[in-house]
């Protein structure tokens, strides 16, 4: 019954429809007809792609593909490029080093505390090698965390008197991963002109606004901060979410001088900027116990938001660490790219670092600050004509630059090479400071790098000074 009724109902609707069709006014039907035709046209027309240039035929495209010639993958490097031919060191790069077959006294490796050849350090590393093998076979998150890593982090945090420390397996990657973990696009970073390349790469990866201030010039920095303050007043909403950082180094690698930390702290609280301090050169060197520039100036370490250093200089190991309050450091465990996506530090290197740290703690007299007078021997008293010493008197890594440039950078580099070769032939191993000329933001002038370590005796320092004098005389005059 219901089905029949439904069938009748359907028929009835159909009849109604046909009736309505006949009764509708003409314009209505014509309009509907046009609309239906338009829909059919749209359905069958070709889709309009904005990207493709429809005026190129397939043949033309193939011709373009045929014609295109790329540049070679790498341009050829001239055979006499100064950075192409490396010095070959046979044997350990310790105090007495064999370079290119010749035995020399090492004035080029950053082995400030002489721990590279220390027997206790080596035996601690050997014990670790016997227990763990060499590699960790995984990043920290996936069975790459060893008890030695945890111990090293604890020891570093205790030594530096901060809450927490985090270890990286590569010194360069430490600051280059730490900066982008906090500073993102839209944030502002004030950085010194003489900052090292690792900091520059970290800043580039962070995509923040970079503002360079003149090297160690607090007035310039204050000017930039004031400018930023007036910008903030124009747009307070944006200012409330824009983070600001100052990135400085304790002892600058490129110039050998120290940053004026007390003034920076004052600026920090006045303008509400956070400070990131890179202490690769000053860790183990400055301060009564080697805790770095904060101990040197007697500043509360909590005033510095993040301290980053590499363990490849004073600690004579491999890798780097960051230390600070847990609030700051813990964030890197999930956002530090070099920490999360990379294998952890081999345990033998971590054990070597722990032992080196033990030695540093037990022997505060090991501190090369007591070799201040040695550095004076090289810089102040014996004047080397044609070359000037650049760097603080207590910096262990100095630069010898030409007093006047001899035309172009290439010429200067060649001249310095001759000085270095003269010294190497007479038993003092030196090296030129190497830079990537096209990549640096503010390229430092060419220089010879001189490194003072605790292992060098007075006679060796005197010999080095006199040899440099001789070399400068013969090459530059």
């Amino acid at each position, binding site marked *: 019954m219901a089905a029949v009724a439904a069938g009748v109902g359907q028929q009835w609707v159909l009849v109604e429809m046909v009736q309505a069709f006949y009764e509708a006014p003409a314009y209505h039907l014509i309009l509907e007809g046009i609309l239906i035709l338009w829909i059919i046209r749209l359905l069958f027309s070709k889709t309009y792609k904005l990207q493709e240039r429809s005026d190129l035929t397939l043949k033309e*495209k193939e011709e373009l*593909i045929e014609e*295109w010639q*790329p540049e070679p*993958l*790498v341009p*050829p490097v001239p055979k006499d490029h100064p*950075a*192409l031919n*490396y*010095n070959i060191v046979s044997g*350990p*790069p310790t105090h007495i*080093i064999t370079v290119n077959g010749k035995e020399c006294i090492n004035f080029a490796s*950053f082995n400030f505390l002489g721990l*590279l050849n220390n027997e206790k350090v080596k035996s601690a*590393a050997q014990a670790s090698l016997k*227990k*763990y*093998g*060499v*590699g*960790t*076979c*995984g990043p*920290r998150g*996936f*069975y790459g965390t060893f008890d030695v890593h945890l111990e090293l982090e604890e020891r570093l945090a205790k030594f530096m008197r901060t809450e927490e420390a985090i270890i990286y397996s*590569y010194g*360069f*990657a430490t600051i280059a991963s730490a900066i982008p973990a*906090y500073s993102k696009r839209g944030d502002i970073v004030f950085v010194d002109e003489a900052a*090292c*390349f690792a900091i520059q*790469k970290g800043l*580039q990866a962070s995509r923040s606004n970079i503002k360079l201030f003149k090297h160690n010039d607090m007035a310039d920095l204050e000017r930039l901060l004031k400018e930023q303050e007036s910008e903030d007043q124009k747009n307070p909403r944006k200012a409330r*979410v*824009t983070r600001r950082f100052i990135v400085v180094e304790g002892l600058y690698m490129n110039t050998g001088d120290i940053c004026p930390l007390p003034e920076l702290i004052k600026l920090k609280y006045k303008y*509400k900027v*956070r400070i990131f301090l890179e202490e690769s050169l000053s860790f183990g060197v400055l301060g009564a116990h080697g805790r770095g520039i904060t101990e040197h100036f007697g500043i509360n370490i909590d005033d510095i938001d993040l301290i980053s250093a590499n363990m*490849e200089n004073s600690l*004579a190991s*491999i890798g780097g660490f960051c230390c600070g*309050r*847990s*609030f*700051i450091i*813990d*964030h890197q465990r*999930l956002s530090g*790219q070099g920490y999360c*996506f*990379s294998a952890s530090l*081999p345990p*033998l*290197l971590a054990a070597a670092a722990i032992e080196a740290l033990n030695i540093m703690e037990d022997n505060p007299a090991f501190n090369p600050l007591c070799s201040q007078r040695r550095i004076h021997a090289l810089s102040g008293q014996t004047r080397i004509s044609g070359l000037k010493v650049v760097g603080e008197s207590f910096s262990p890594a100095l630069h010898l630059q030409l007093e006047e440039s001899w035309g172009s950078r290439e010429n200067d580099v060649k001249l310095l090479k001759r000085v270095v070769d003269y010294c190497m032939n007479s038993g003092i191993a030196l090296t030129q*400071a190497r*830079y*990537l000329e096209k*990549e640096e933001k503010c390229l430092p002038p060419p220089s010879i790098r001189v490194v003072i370590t605790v292992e060098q005796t007075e006679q060796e320092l005197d010999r080095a000074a006199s040899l440099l004098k001789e070399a400068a005389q013969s090459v530059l005059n």
Partner: protein
Amino acid sequence: STKPDRLQEINHIVHNGGLYKRPFNEAFEETPMLVAVLTYVGYGVLTLFGYLRDFMRQWKIEKCQNATEREEQKDFVPLYQDFENFYNRNLYMRIRDSWNRPICSVPGAKVDMMERVSHDYNWTFTYTGRVIKDIINMGSYNYLGFAQKTGACQEAAAKVLSQYGAGVCSTRQEMGNLDKHEELEKLVARFLGVESAMAYGMGFATNSMNIPALVGKGCLILSDELNHASLVLGARLSGATIRIFKHNNMQSLEKLLKDAIVHGQPRTRRPWKKILILVEGIYSMEGSIVRLPEVIALKKKYKSYLYLDEAHSIGALGPSGRGVVDYFGLNPEDVDVMMGTFTKSFGAAGGYIGGKKELIDYLRTYSHSAAYATSMSPPVVEQIITSVKCIMGEDGTTIGRARVQQLAENTRYFRRRLKEMGFIIYGNEDSPVVPLMLYMPAKIGAFGREMLKRNIGVVVVGFPATPIIESRARFCLSAAHTKEMLDTALKEINEVGDLLQLKYSRRRLVPLLDRPFDETTYEETED
């Protein structure tokens, strides 16, 4: 009876005009609809609870456990946005015990783990002092079993350590280039079959510091969707234009290449200076192997350059362990830049780049790492030298070859058994990286914990390393795993799979067709 013929037909279609000398079997079973819906529901519930807990923490009803800013700096701009950490605080923190597990022995086939407990729901951990011994290690990247504390490699490394010390204290271009480094580089070049090679101290840094040296502004980088963070960072730092093609999808890559050459740079229409294709040998989250023969054919046709990152595939693939080039039987000279790491199959640390002499000379001069980063530690270098010689058979034994074969056998066996049990396994049949799909967020934590209870250490991964609904457990097979260990592991996985209802596979196989490029998942059904 008809099945073998059918399979042969399938493999023949994949042979793709004779480019492949062996069958290429890769499968990514589609997520079952019900599972996807339940996963979203799961995340929804967790998010709601997250908001509730945040609310309670803000109104001090619940104690706030995370570290806070200093009093003196409370008026500074906040360092972290609240929302950025929402996922960390409310989802990651609940299952945080699945990661960062501390171990205290060599990361070989069996490992000892330090027991840790949490009394406040994973906010802090305390170590009980007990050591859980002999956990079967299915998480460490120990493909050829060179993570050993005894043996020829360890002895050689010990000798070099006592002679050279642990550190180097200088860069390669200054005073850090030891004779050991030169020896290593010559050996690696010989191993790979290239003219020249250069080694670096960190695998991540090898990519992030050398890609900017090779390409710059005005160049084009075509990068796979699922490339590793180091490749992405290197590509970004270089300043070149980056375009992404769908994962392992050759039609997508070809389209991008065609468009790039025909249309040139955007807006200025100048031709590109060079085009660099970035691919990996084995993708560690998917377990897939790159379609290298097709990539090389495309690269030759369109005159671009190929950068192959063999982080996981060197040592693990190929009849002689020389990586994905060896696996497909191709010529190493066709790959312009062969990059790899020493962390996985060689039991050491660091990375290398191999290629023509001009390339390596250029990198020696202009690589960021050579100029500014400390060179590799001597005992680590010695470990690599010894293990490479072992794999090549030059140490006078057949251990290397045996290990490569053992790994291949383990891979095939393990994958076959897991598929038979009914789990969804991603990736290529020959890849020693085996992802097992979990999907639901609660199962991530449950799987890790249940397996640990049964003395098996596994790696689980969730968002953001994988897409949000595709969480997985990832097994890394090793030549050091014996058949007994694998059987034990499989038994336990079976048990846990039943307990947690992880056997999602509907086991439908269709013949693989050459699909148009807007479909990226293959579904295999058999009738």
